[in-house]
């Protein structure tokens, strides 16, 4: 990192590219060929797209890029899902098919970098972007290590121009970078991992937990997934800032949303905007009447769910969000804009309602299977009260409140790196040092859990 921060220009591109490939190969060197293949295909498709004279030829080149990327994603991520689902379907009708299940390892971050490279070729096809002639710059755009494995999913028009590295990171960027990394680590380790440990136990054996414990488990999962993923995004953005690169914001206090449409403008922003630009709008968006708009919305959310993983639980999660969005559009009669005019109490009620809806959908997202989700719902409906409800409540409230507090400060200061607003250097470094001390201490209490979104 220090060398990467110090270097400038072309040499920095080469250095960061080598580091990025080393970083990716650290998990499994065999998958380096995959990312290299995707890079080569999209680089040349980009060149051919710009040279193609007719729309038909352009479209053919685009199909190659989309086909290759979706083909890779489909094979590595969804092959077994479709094979198993087909076998289950045949079995439902009394048939029998020999097992076609393949022993495939899912390459880390494949969903992220394939979407990123696809946006490059689609933007060139749409005439919104000129292709880069610099192969190394493009390779770094695809494999830039801070955001390679779990996003944010960057657009070429934002990230590629920054890959020139004409200047080193500014003092402000360095300060913001350090704060983002520190806060990100705190969120990931102290909030995400702690709650994750409890969530893992509850969802591994839901049958031995009481109704209220399952609800606490679900609330803790909502804290875990947010702290874990937004923590990772903070670390990614902070690391990029230290290298002089600005990445997009991925979260904007999503649990403060007053309705589900607003939630999707604040949660995993880089994915939701990608789905909107490259799926919802090409499907027709809201241009062809209400019914088709709802259909497009549902299709987008279903595919958004499937993007997270090859499991019916993710599809149901997507379907639930699709249904929520449609109902919200019906209720608000397709009015756009957020509920800024609501009073305090009404706002809180809306926030609580939105959170409950999101929480219900998280159950399907976290459950191992649809059957397990239904089992948990049945168990919750029994209203059994835990003998350790006080402790469970205390744990849940503490971690939820710390998460809300951090979001509240972000919201009030309108900054993810709000600590930079502290004027006294002694206090600024004191806060950062104490956060790091806590992170280090906690890391030694137990083995760290992997980032949730690494599996996607």
């Amino acid at each position, binding site marked *: 990192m220090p060398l990467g921060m110090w270097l400038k220009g072309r040499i920095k591109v080469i250095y960061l590219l080598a580091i990025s490939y080393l970083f990716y190969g650290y998990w499994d060197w065999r998958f380096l060929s995959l990312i290299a293949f995707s890079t080569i295909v999209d680089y040349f498709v980009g060149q051919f797209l710009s040279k193609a004279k007719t729309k038909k030829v352009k479209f053919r080149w685009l199909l190659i890029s989309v086909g290759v990327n979706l083909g890779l994603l489909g094979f590595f991520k969804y092959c077994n899902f479709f094979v198993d689902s087909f076998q289950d379907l045949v079995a439902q009708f009394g048939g029998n098919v020999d097992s076609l299940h393949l022993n495939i390892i899912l390459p880390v971050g494949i969903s992220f970098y394939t979407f990123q490279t696809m946006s490059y070729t689609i933007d060139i096809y749409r005439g919104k972007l000129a292709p880069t002639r610099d192969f190394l710059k493009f390779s770094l755009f695809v494999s830039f290590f801070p955001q390679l494995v779990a996003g944010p999913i960057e657009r070429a028009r934002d990230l590629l121009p920054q890959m020139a590295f004409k200047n080193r990171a500014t003092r402000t960027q360095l300060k913001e970078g350090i704060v983002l990394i520190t806060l990100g680590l705190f969120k990931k380790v102290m909030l995400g991992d702690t709650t994750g440990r409890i969530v893992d136990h509850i969802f591994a054996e839901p049958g031995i937990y009481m109704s209220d414990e399952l609800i606490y488990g679900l609330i803790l999962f909502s804290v875990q997934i947010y702290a874990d993923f937004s923590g990772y995004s903070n670390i990614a953005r902070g690391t990029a800032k230290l290298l002089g690169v600005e990445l997009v914001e991925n979260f904007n206090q999503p649990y403060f949303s007053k309705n589900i449409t607003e939630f999707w403008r604040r949660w995993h922003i880089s994915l939701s905007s990608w789905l909107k630009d490259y799926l919802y709008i090409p499907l027709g968006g809201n241009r062809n009447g209400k019914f088709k708009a709802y259909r497009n919305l549902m299709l987008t959310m279903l595919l958004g769910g499937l993007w997270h993983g090859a499991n019916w639980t993710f599809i149901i999660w997507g379907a639930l969000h699709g249904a929520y969005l449609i109902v919200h559009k019906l209720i608000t009669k397709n009015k756009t804009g957020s509920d800024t005019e609501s009073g305090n109490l009404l706002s809180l009620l809306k926030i609580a309602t939105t959170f409950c809806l999101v929480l219900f959908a998280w159950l399907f997202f976290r459950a191992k299977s649809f059957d397990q989700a239904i089992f948990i719902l049945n168990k919750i409906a029994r209203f059994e009260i835990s*003998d350790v409800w006080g402790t469970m409540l205390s744990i849940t409230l503490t971690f939820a409140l710390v998460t809300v507090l951090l979001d509240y400060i972000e919201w009030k200061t309108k900054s993810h790196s709000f600590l930079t607003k502290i004027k006294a250097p002694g206090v600024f470094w004191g806060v950062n040092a104490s956060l790091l001390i806590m992170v280090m201490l906690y890391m030694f209490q137990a083995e760290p859990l992997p980032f949730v979104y690494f599996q996607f």
Partner: protein
Amino acid sequence: MKTLKQILLFCCTILVLLACYEVMLTFGEVIPPKYREVDNEIGLRFLSNKNVTRFNEGFFIGSTNSQGNLGPTVNLVNKPPNEKRVALMGDSYVVGQQVFYRQHFAQQTENLLNNSHQENFKLLNFGMNGYQLADMYVRYKNLVERYQPDLTLFFVAPEDLSYTSAGLNPKIDLIDNELIIENQFSKSESKGVKAKIEELRLWSMLSACKSLIAKKQASSILFGKFAADNSVNESNHVKNSETLTLDHPSLDLITMKVVEQLSKSKNVAVVLLKPISTVDLNQIKLSGIPIIDLAPAINLVKKREINPVYWSATKKTGHYNHYVHKEMSVILDEEISKLLQP
């Protein structure tokens, strides 16, 4: 002067925020506070009325009772005539801080006994981590007899039959064929401000760090990729545990003497947590102490293709999981009923 002010601000900020984290950890309850102390007579004991949350291969939330034990509180002066007390002695398997106490075999056995008998059964858990049979004997003599148990069960595994421990527990010696208990501990407890600091959760975290660094496990946590994978394949472990050899006897002279002493006590029984060697088994049988074998409970779990020591949430092996606790309670219910038959 300005620099000094900033250094002072830096230190104050760290201290204030560490205090805030301590509050967060106290309410968050994920780091257990200090919950054991050294008693001059019995050695390590749990502090009374302490809430404890523990993450190991399993997950435990629970608390100690007002008498500093696990399980129900009982009247030490007047024992109600209808009350039957069963004391459980053992190591971490009996402490059982891998499952919530309602899933612990002690609680489940108590429920089963109370459902099938007119008497009010109370299963008192005197387990202490790391205890061997000799330690259990000392604890039984120094503490448990005060509770007037109708039956005391000593839970043992092969490793509990050769005495090695001392540390914060009374030392036991065999001099002229007599068991001598010495209440001299190799470590002593802190007092005053230091003791107060040691009660902090941040201190617990620091101690855990120190012990990990001492065990040279720090790097494996920081650089997980280079460390050995602790997760276990469930089915492999079943096979491994089946191939355990039981040819080597473990009973040493001190523990043999303990067995001899226990055989003189009324209403005691040995519970086999794991199979012990035939030689050791015969020695205990010869002493006349009743033996309860938990192997059928473990075999029943294995028959259902479940690894008795596998924890799916952490993908680790360790103590018996909740499936075994449940089956153990069925066997213990039957055996305790038999042993306490008038």
